[in-house]
């Protein structure tokens, strides 16, 4: 391994850390609602009401469940079922089903964010 290789590794570690910080700062979440996008359009889900949502994707239906103020992907028609393995939609970590063209993420807040104090 050369010094250049070490430089690449250090750069990648810094890029990973920077992207993690950026993603964490950029999206304050309400966790009260979620948005599911699919080929047929966008669906807003109220996380305070338990229930099942079926989204028709390119490869077939993708099924989500609202349970205890959380959104889970519980079934999919795609071959790998990565979305089902991801399961819970967490703040900053959307659940994506690439073959079906479906993604689910928690909504951002327009009320939160901004400065909490004024510096002089």
């Amino acid at each position, binding site marked *: 391994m050369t010094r250049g290789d070490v430089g690449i590794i250090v750069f990648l570690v810094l890029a990973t850390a920077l992207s993690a910080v950026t993603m964490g700062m950029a999206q304050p979440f309400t966790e009260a609602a979620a948005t599911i996008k699919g080929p047929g359009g966008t669906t807003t889900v109220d996380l305070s009401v338990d229930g099942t949502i079926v989204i028709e994707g390119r490869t077939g239906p993708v099924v989500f469940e609202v349970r205890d103020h959380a959104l889970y992907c519980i079934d999919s028609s795609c071959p790998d079922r990565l979305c089902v393995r991801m399961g819970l939609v967490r703040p900053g970590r959307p659940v*994506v089903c690439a*073959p079906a063209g479906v993604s689910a993420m928690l909504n951002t807040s327009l009320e939160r964010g901004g400065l909490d104090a004024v510096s002089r």
Partner: protein
Amino acid sequence: MPSLADTSSPSRRVATVASLLALACVLGMVEALLVPPLPVPGLKLGVANVAVVVALTVLDPRDALAISIGRVLIVGIATGTLFGPVGAMSAAGAIASWALMSLLAGAGPRFSPIGWSVAGAAASVTAQLIAASATIGSPSPLMLMPVSLGLSLPSGIVVGLLSRLLISRISREVTPAIA
């Protein structure tokens, strides 16, 4: 390690490209069918990149691109994902990975196959997430960038180590006249 393009006969070059393409396809199929998918859409260990890294060392970037694109096409047809979002993600990842690895390979001895592989793995996952966002029509896959970049580091190192092992073996076979 010097390129062997000008010392190998055309028939030996074709045979080497074909062998590496076959290797890339087998590794790609094994990864697609047997290795449990990682919980990040489109993210793969990229073991098939071993063949591309070897090609950049013992052949030239043009042959490496042919191997990379050929692998995407063949594995895509075999798994039925070529003309869908997964095929687009695979192609984007393969091209981005090849481009950055070729750039680093052309920079001389400053970087080794390990560095090429790490950079190529990072470029691949980045391109795959961008392609996923484009096909879905939502930027949400980009939020998986931190985890994807983090996983690309160990996978790139593993691919680099495997490549270096294979290069040490294949060089003697490709050019028996060179000690």
